[in-house]
């Protein structure tokens, strides 16, 4: 255990945990926006898969990372149109329609991969970018300020989303649509329009999450996400619909995963405990929630399509 508590190992473990947490964080932030306005999107994983493939394909063909990321976001946006049309306009059962989007994404992304690419080829992943000065800080610099650009973007989005939700008119409308859509409606807020906007934004975030995952892995494979999109939805509940809470959940999940891998690589976890140790991120996330869950209440109209009285 002593070899774990060295500056170098701690630094790399935390840095790895942050990198692991990033796709979760991006997807969960997007889901937070949607859920605060009253829309559950369980299709995140499918959207991430499609976006990851789009990112991969564009990167492979053009070698332009920025364009690839945009392709991922665009795919997310496109799936957002579908999700919003189904969930908001057609007032479909949100949980189930999300499963449909998930299955579509799971099947279709691999179909495209097999037909358009076939033999897997790697793409060039963007290098880590140190933030000048900050990355020189001993230990902390290596932990936080020597990451891929998308990592910074994800964490910068946390205060941005929090600010939008809590301190802008738009945020007020989002919360109103999620808490009491009838009242919001009577005040002249178009619940449908607000929910459309949050779903589109949320799915674009999911697309970005897929892109960040793909750029982290540097290659596409069937079911690349391994249910990360579902975990991201779970982390929204963990974070009690607050961007900071969602960030805490993502970091917890990512860090525990990174610590387990480090401990395995240092031989701290014996081989016989390898399988069970892999459950740690999930177990700890649930246990952590037992202590904080009581205090928060979900948006009152969450998952309920809004039907205007005639």
């Amino acid at each position, binding site marked *: 255990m002593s070899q774990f508590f060295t500056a170098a190992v701690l630094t790399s473990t935390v840095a790895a945990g942050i990198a692991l947490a990033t796709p979760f964080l991006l997807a969960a932030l997007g889901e937070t926006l949607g859920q605060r306005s009253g829309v*559950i999107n*369980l299709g995140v994983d*499918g959207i991430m898969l499609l976006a990851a493939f789009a990112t991969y394909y564009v990167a492979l063909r053009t070698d332009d990372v920025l364009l690839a990321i945009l392709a991922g976001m665009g795919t997310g946006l496109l799936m957002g149109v*579908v999700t919003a*049309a*189904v969930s908001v306009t*057609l*007032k*479909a*059962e*949100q*949980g*189930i*329609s999300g*499963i*449909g*989007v*998930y*299955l*579509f*994404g*799971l*099947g*279709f992304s*691999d*179909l495209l991969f*097999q*037909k358009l690419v076939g033999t897997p080829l790697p793409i060039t992943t963007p290098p880590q970018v140190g933030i000048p000065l900050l990355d020189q800080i001993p230990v902390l610099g290596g932990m936080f300020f020597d990451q891929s650009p998308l990592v910074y973007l994800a964490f910068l989005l946390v205060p941005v989303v929090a600010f939008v939700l809590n301190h802008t008119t738009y945020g007020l409308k989002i919360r109103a649509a999620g808490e009491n859509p009838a009242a919001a409606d009577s005040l002249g807020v178009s619940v449908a329009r607000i929910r459309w906007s949050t779903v589109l934004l949320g799915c674009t975030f999911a697309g970005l999450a897929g892109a960040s995952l793909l750029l982290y892995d540097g290659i596409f494979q*069937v079911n690349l996400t391994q*249910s990360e999109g*579902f*975990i991201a*939805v*779970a*982390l929204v*509940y*963990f974070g009690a619909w607050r961007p900071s809470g969602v960030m805490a959940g993502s970091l917890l999940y990512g860090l525990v995963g990174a610590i387990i891998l480090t401990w395995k690589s240092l031989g701290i976890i014996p081989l*016989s405990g390898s*399988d*069970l140790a*892999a*459950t740690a*991120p*999930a*177990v700890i*996330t*649930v246990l952590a*929630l*037992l202590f904080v*869950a*009581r205090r928060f*209440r*979900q948006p009152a109209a*969450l*998952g*309920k*399509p809004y*039907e205007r*009285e*005639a």
Partner: protein
Amino acid sequence: MLGWLAIPSALLGALVLGAVMMLALGANPLTGYRALLVGAFGGSYALGSTAFQAAPLLLVGVGICIAFRANVFNIGGEGQIAMGGLAGAATALAFPELPSVVLIPLVLLAGTAGGAIWGAIPGFFKAQYNVNEILSTIMLNLVAVQVMNYLLAGPMVDHSQASVGGLIPETQLLSRNAWLPILVPGTQLHLGVLIAVLVAIAAYLLLWRTTFGFRLRAVGLSRDASAYAGMPVKRTIVWAVTLSGAACGLAGSILVFGSISHRMVTDGSLTGFTGSAGFNGIVVALFGGLNPLWTIVSAFLFGGLIVGGSALQVATGVPSDLVTALSGIVVVLVVSLEYLRRRARSQSTALAAFGGANPPTLRRGEPPPAAAVGGDGA
């Protein structure tokens, strides 16, 4: 009228999209669909295979119906199936000598119990600690896969399977006394299929013929109103997830003891064992209008899709991913058309009631209007 058309037209829409995709992939859709149909329903063996695939889907679907009626969203089916399979297999390993009449019910009950416990945990967390069930069931799936890998490669492993690569993560050949008997010789139609159908009927009776079922649906429609009426809301929710898990656990046991290999095998993933029945069961339940009886029909349709999907892959070279994508499209179309159906009906009801609103009712066999998932209630 639109109500009856919603599901067939969703299916039709998906088939047309599927045909377009096949054309785009350079395959002949007619060949493909013919292979799919023949593979799934052509002849007694194909029908038996379809029934074989349908049984776990039906059980998970029934579990989803129960949970959903109580407005609880169980996406932990995958883990509950695995736990059911493990509990059943462990029981058969422990008591291999028991006669079939005892051992078969015992392993099925053990599987049911295994799934029930794995379902009760999120139920308990929700009732006691207000932990959302979507979160806990997702996380418990992640736990279940590692527990399965651990048990099948360790305590439950078959020590006789030696190769240079060491042991294979699977149980030994399970006691013949626990095998589900084949009902139609020469096919895969085993007792588990019959049990699944009986469970579906039982679930229907439970939901619509008992006080418990009424309470469960009442809680699903409005937790506040149910609490106001003096119903034990929390307990009902725990029971709903537990029963849902129990049905999934039974599916796991049936997967093991009705399998061709009669062992529990892992390839390291949940899907490898469940075939994604935990997710597909949600689709099946929806397709059956969240009514356990219609879910029987729907499970056989989707079972056929799985069996036929493999045949389609062989005949046209189109990856069976196409079937996964298509079932996703079916779901999206069904839930979308459902709204049009509701609206058509509420308009006709509204006309009949001279413009009055259409209040939520506890009519038999109807999905709860605008049921919300993940609702924490008050």
